[in-house]
């Protein structure tokens, strides 16, 4: 690992990974449940990576570690080659550099679509008018220009997920971590959301880590990592 970092510094053709797990292990319940065991994984800037595997294989835990939502029990999580120093540093990264998309959308029901998209901008983008304008632009780009003032309960599943994607893009991140983004959607909506994610990745040059157990979804990524029982069982093109 140290050798790799040194090589990256000495050889300009080796790019520093945007995000990286280094021998990361995550256990729960005092070690009785092992969600991830010694996983090493690198996400390059702008790449798209699918993480596949059966239920309970540790895919969501891997995503949470990459986004700093939880800390590894052993091993390290790096962002641009450095280990963020604690929860505050991770909060700053999630606010400015990392966007999350969840299977269950996780939109705040009391807020409108427009307000949900502005949520990550508080404290990051100065000025209420700037935040409002930026959120409007994102929602219009995602085809929700006429749904700004609707609350999540008044939107379809596909629309909710588009709002969630707009929210993940609110602060123009470098990395989007999508946890089963099509898991709650019908086939047509799934295709629509995947098309959108792929298009946005190409359009904005953002790296995308897509956790899925859907082979068709995984096929849209440049690279696939297969997890089984918390360990990497294979890696390669889809």
């Amino acid at each position, binding site marked *: 690992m140290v050798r790799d970092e040194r090589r990256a510094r000495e050889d300009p053709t080796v790019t520093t990974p945007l995000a990286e797990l280094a021998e990361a292990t995550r256990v729960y319940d005092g070690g009785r449940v092992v969600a991830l065991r010694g996983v090493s994984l690198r996400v390059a800037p702008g790449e798209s990576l699918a993480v596949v595997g059966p239920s309970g294989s540790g895919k969501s835990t891997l995503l949470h570690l990459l986004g700093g939502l*939880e800390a590894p029990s052993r091993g390290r999580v790096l962002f641009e080659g450095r280990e963020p120093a604690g929860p505050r540093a991770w909060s700053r990264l*999630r606010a400015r550099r990392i966007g999350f998309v969840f299977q269950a959308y*996780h939109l705040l029901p009391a*807020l409108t679509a427009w307000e949900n998209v502005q949520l990550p901008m508080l404290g990051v983008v100065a000025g209420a008018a700037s935040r409002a304008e930026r959120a409007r632009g994102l929602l219009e780009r995602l085809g929700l220009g006429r749904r700004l003032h609707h609350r999540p309960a008044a939107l379809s599943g596909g629309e909710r997920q588009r709002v969630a994607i707009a929210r993940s893009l609110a602060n123009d991140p470098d990395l989007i971590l999508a946890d089963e983004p099509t898991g709650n959607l019908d086939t047509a909506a799934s295709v629509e959301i995947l098309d959108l994610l792929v298009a946005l990745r190409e359009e904005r040059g953002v790296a995308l880590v897509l956790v899925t157990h859907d082979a068709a979804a995984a096929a849209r990524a440049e690279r696939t990592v297969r997890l089984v029982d918390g360990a990497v069982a294979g890696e390669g093109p889809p």
Partner: protein
Amino acid sequence: MNAFTLPCADLRRRPLRTALTALGIAAAVSSYLTLVSLAQGLEVGWIASLQGRGVHMLALSRDTVEVMASSLPEALGEEIAAVPGVVAVAGEMANLVRLELPGAGTLHVTVRGWPPDSFKWRALPLAEGAPPEPGASAAGHPGIVLGVTLADLLGVGVGDPFALRGQPFVVTGVAAPGGVWNDRAVFMPLAAMQAAFDRPGQVTEFGLQVARPQDAASLADLERDLERRFPRLDLLASGDIAGQNDVVRTFRAFAGAVSWVAMGMALVIVLNTLLMSVTERTREIGVLAAVGWSPARILGTVVLQGLLLTAIGAAGGVALGAFSLRVVLRHPTLGGLVEPGLRPEAVLETLVAALVVGAVGGLYPAWRAARARPAASLRHG
């Protein structure tokens, strides 16, 4: 969208819970405001009663807890009057008596006895009639002056008979000196009062007029000089007497204790509501962490929600408190002792206390929300 959007949206999401919580806070704030206003009104009423009689400084028997229990020889007044800086001295006997109001229960009124040559008679503005002459009136009974409110309550006027402690008097005048104490008082010649209360040759206090009443340093010097000359006296500037009186202090302490119990209840209400809110929004708090909200921002938004809730309750509480105060002061006993009206300082003190309660009540739920682990929160429910 701004920092208020989410706390406001959460309050709107549970309108019944928000309304009931605000109502609970309003009840506590109203109790606090009523008690604080009663304590202040008692103090203000007392000070106004002194100032209405033209008194700059009071001389009482030393270490007396209650002014009306003070007892001094009337003759001491001449010695006090001889001290440089003292312009005039008026002995006074004061007492609190109970009068029966026909069909309206009992009324507590102060009775004050002054010598015929006292400056207090000159300072007493009469609405009608005249001060009583020394000795008996034409009707054969001693004369008295009634405060205008008392005269109205009793339905008596100049020339009417009046009974006090079973003894007959005649009303010779109606005075409007201002202040709830004075407007409900009975004023009579000192000799008549000494006879009526079986305390011949005694006064409860001396009221002093001094050469430079506005000069605090001069007042303090005179106070020290008088205390040195008359070691058995306590001297009090009229602005201090209410604050230094043990009865007022006791009432103030009692009102303070009860009002803080009320605020303690408000704190528990805020705490309970916000804890419920934070618990049921565990996953949403995880979402806030996932989109990059720092623990400090999450803490701030919950505290802000508590403050908003308290502000709504406090606004209602001030209105309710103003109404309660009016109702409470309709009671004949309290109405005679407490200067009515909602004072800005009482409202300000209440609002500050309420907001402190809101912030403190919100801190623990906010801390719980801020320290929650994001991934565990997202898996919640």
